[in-house]
């Protein structure tokens, strides 16, 4: 299929005796937002790790733009345009926001050791061009100009997540892998993040593959949803399809109805004591 930018074929991964992924196959359509959902421990993050090359699946192939990338080292894959953010924030705490973002662009820069030591001509020009690009395209877009020279360690959680996104953007991705981009955020911050993702997708035409547990957001913004359970793919399709799949409801969604649950637990009674 021409319009699938990423294709996974029969990915199986296990640790010792623990089967984390078994025979997972699906495709990620170019220019769309695809979400992976599934219970905790289903293997979503592991799948991301397999895509970015940190885990080596025992079986299966990964195609990126029609090319098998299964044998490539992680840095090579990043260079090809597979960028990601991490479930547990993984910023470089010893660097400023700006440097964290610049690091994302690492694989596109060419400065060698000697040039770097003396900061001569080419090295300097390259750095300046990078700075310009990061400033105008990423920092402005994500509205983080006021914190660019701060150390990331002192930032609020929501901002850290945003810097992670910025760093991923600096990789110059064709596919953006986001692992739980709005976990731990309040409604307002979630809305901001959703907005950025939508803009990236619609205005920059970027393909997004994300893992997220906030079903409200997944349903609202994704074009395709893939459901994993115990390492197996149990459903895929549009948000609407998936939402009504009984197996998905049983394994993952639950009732989703708060007042129902309240009644079931008889909380009202307790509340009015």
């Amino acid at each position, binding site marked *: 299929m021409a319009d699938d930018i990423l294709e996974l074929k029969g990915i199986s991964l296990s640790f010792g005796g623990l089967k984390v992924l078994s025979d997972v196959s699906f495709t990620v359509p170019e220019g769309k937002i695809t979400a992976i959902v599934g219970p905790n421990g289903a293997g979503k993050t592991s799948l991301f790790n397999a895509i*970015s*090359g*940190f885990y080596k699946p025992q079986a299966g192939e990964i195609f990126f733009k029609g090319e098998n990338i299964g044998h490539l*080292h*992680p*840095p090579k894959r*990043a*260079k090809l345009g597979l*960028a*990601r953010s*991490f479930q547990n924030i*993984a910023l*470089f*705490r*010893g*660097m400023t926001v700006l*440097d964290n973002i*610049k*690091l*994302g*662009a*690492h*694989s596109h*820069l060419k*400065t060698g*050791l000697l*040039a*770097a*030591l*003396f*900061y001569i001509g080419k*090295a*300097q020009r390259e*750095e*300046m061009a990078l*700075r*310009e690009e990061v*400033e105008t395209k990423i920092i402005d877009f994500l509205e983080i100009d006021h914190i660019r020279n701060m150390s990331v360690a002192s930032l609020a959680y929501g901002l850290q997540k945003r810097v992670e996104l910025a*760093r991923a953007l600096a*990789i110059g991705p064709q596919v953006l892998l986001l692992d739980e981009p709005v976990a731990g955020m309040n409604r307002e911050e979630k809305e901001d993040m959703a907005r950025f993702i939508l803009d990236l997708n619609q205005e920059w035409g970027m393909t997004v593959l994300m893992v997220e547990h906030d079903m409200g957001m997944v349903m609202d913004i994704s074009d395709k949803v893939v459901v994993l359970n115990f390492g197996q793919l149990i459903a895929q399709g549009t948000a609407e399809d998936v939402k009504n799949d009984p197996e998905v409801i049983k394994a993952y969604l639950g009732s989703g109805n708060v007042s129902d649950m309240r009644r079931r637990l008889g909380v009202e009674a307790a509340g009015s004591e």
Partner: protein
Amino acid sequence: MRIGDAVSTYPSDEAIFRTQTQKVWMGIFIATLLTFPFVSSPYTLFLACLVGIAVISATGLNILVGLTGQISLGHGGFMGVGAYTAVWLADNMGMGLALSMPLAGLLTAAVGVVVGLPSLRVKGLYLAIATMAASVILHFIFVHWEPVTGGNAGINLQNANIFGINLNSDLRMYFVVVPLAIIAVLGERNLLRTRIGRAFIAVRDRDISAEVLGVDLLRYKLMSFGLSSFYAGCAGALWAYFFKVVTPESFPLDTSIFYLAAIIVGGMGTVLGPILGAIFMTLVPEILKILTAVVVPILPNAQVLLSPVRVVVFGALIVGFLLYEPHGMAEMWRRTRRYSHLWPFKT
């Protein structure tokens, strides 16, 4: 008090010295360095050279430990490789410092890369001990490879010159060592504003995330080992030119610990730290000696009685410093500076 510095271009924002004041201070500093040897006593001149060599070596170790996060206890051994190589090249090939030092640095870098090979799998203290293993093996080679290293007796540098100028005085050494130290520090500073420096720090902070973001771990770890050893090799070469002899005992394990202490007390991962640390570690023992001498009129036997006390005080100073400011002297310096900029307002 200074209020924000307005910068209008990216290059000026990324310049090393961003303000006029900084440039003026730098000028004064350079001028001081230039005039110092002419007003100092031979003894302080000697110490200045020693500090200069220590700065180069500490800066090199800082690249590896402070920036890249790979703990090494092999730095002394690397300096030894540089020292032996330089002396051998000078005596057997008739090379001057301008050629023998970089070559010594390169050979040391090669050794460093080999020693760094386990770093992809081995981390933290495990790595530190692996590097210590390297220095033990190097020491064995120094003792037993007699034709080259002169075995126990070591080798003497007969022909210490640079561009034909005989390096037989501390004054001349000073004008070789100090510019090289400045270049070494500038190199490190430059590195920090390019992709290589960032990659080093990324490897230190979170190596596996860095890898997924496009940093080739092995390549950068080895690069760091190589560069750090290059610095060590050059420092070792200068050391040999300075003392004119290298023996297996010249660079014991203590040397590695000395430099580790220097960068930690100075402030790891900063540019200023290794400089301050090198000064501290070299000069404090001397200062303590002067202090003991002050007591002599009161307590005639003080120099003898207080000698072990000096050992205690030196240890206590290291401990005290780190308890007071675990991020080292560079952090203290930064705080003072911030305070002085804001003065008279409280932060």
